[in-house]
């Protein structure tokens, strides 16, 4: 194999691996959390999405989160759940953990 063809093949392999990684990272996971009181639905979301979450139970109590059904990244699912609610989502960029607070 000529050097140019070898380099071309290697380049193709590297690009393909990068594409595979990108696809894998964005594929999301199945999350099915019906609408309900945030104190319950947020913990259920964390269980299904296998993510870490923390929130002030008193301040989010009584807030109804939206239903989420489908394949989503955890951050997307949380955004959908908290749409049209006074809840604010914060994510620790290093560890991926979430904190949910109520808008003041």
């Amino acid at each position, binding site marked *: 194999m000529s050097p140019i063809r070898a380099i071309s*093949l290697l380049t193709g392999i590297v690009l*393909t691996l990068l594409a595979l990684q990108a696809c894998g990272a964005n594929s999301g996971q199945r999350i099915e959390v019906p609408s309900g009181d945030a104190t319950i639905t947020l913990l259920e979301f964390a269980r299904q999405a296998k993510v*870490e979450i923390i929130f002030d139970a008193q301040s989010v109590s009584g807030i109804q989160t939206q239903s989420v059904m489908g394949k989503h990244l955890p951050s997307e699912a949380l955004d959908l759940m908290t749409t049209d609610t006074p809840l604010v989502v914060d994510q*620790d960029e290093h*560890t991926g953990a979430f904190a949910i607070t109520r808008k003041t």
Partner: protein
Amino acid sequence: MKTPPQQPNEFSDIEEVAALWATRIDRGLTAEEQDDYMQWLSESPRHREAMRLFQWAWDEFDRLAGLQTSHEAVPDPDLLAPGSRFTRGSKIRKLLKFSAFVLPTAIAAALAIAFFLEPDDRSEPQLATQIAAPSFQARIEKRTLEDGSQIEINRGGLVQTLFSSTERRVVLVRGEANFTVVKDPSRPFIVEAAGASVRAVGTQFNMKLGDEALDVIVTEGIVSVQDTLAAIAPAANDQLLRVNQQAIVTLDSGDSQIEVTTLSSDQIEAALSWQPKLLDFDSAPLREIVAAFNRSNSIQILLGDSELENIELSCAFWSDNTEGFVRLMESSFNMQAEWLSSRELILR
């Protein structure tokens, strides 16, 4: 001016041998080859490191083998072969040729930019006595292997997986790890450490490699422990270890020994306390949550006042993620963290 003596090209030689072993492992090793391979592996940490890199590359090639086009039902093994439908098209060939020149150029440009943008701290050498800033401990690594078995590696630990068609071999290079093994009687799961080995079919066990001894604790199923490197087939002198039993293999003398004892549930809990736990709290005072983190970590969190102690929070958090917990306390709950020492921080 004298020319410095040339270093032997040792790393290239190691890479060459590692590549050869990677291909042999893929097709399956004979018993003799296995002995040779383990001997070579134990000769130098650089051998193990080279194998780890080649094994990773080999795994990635396996993934490529499963590639398929969106309109074909099965993978095409000749997808990239000369003259195939994929490479025959002149545009694609031109694109591959073009990328061969563009990509190295882009990487070189990126390196050059990074070099020139890097702040030049060479003119001000760091003081040797400078104290490192306190920092959080790295999280405990959880790894799912290709057969579905899981390894949790304690901080500072290092394991290497060497799977073939006939066996699943793992080397505990240093530190401590917990193994949850998926049953596969046709491919034994063997963990090696410092010349000793543990064989399991479907089970859960913990291994801790110290300077003088290897400590094995079984929490599910049965494993066999040998004070030599294991072959694929079980040996007659294997020491069987059952649930709640611990084997300590002494490593400090040529004549190694295996001592087996039965542990109480408290002793097992203490031995496995390094493993992260899911801290699941529903409207619990912050002092309870912090206490749970403190029980699992050497870095201790203090609370600055009683008002903070009584804030009620709900959480699902892994006990080894002190870092994420503290940062979210700061960013979302208006607290401030201050390091008091390298092992203590206070939230106010």
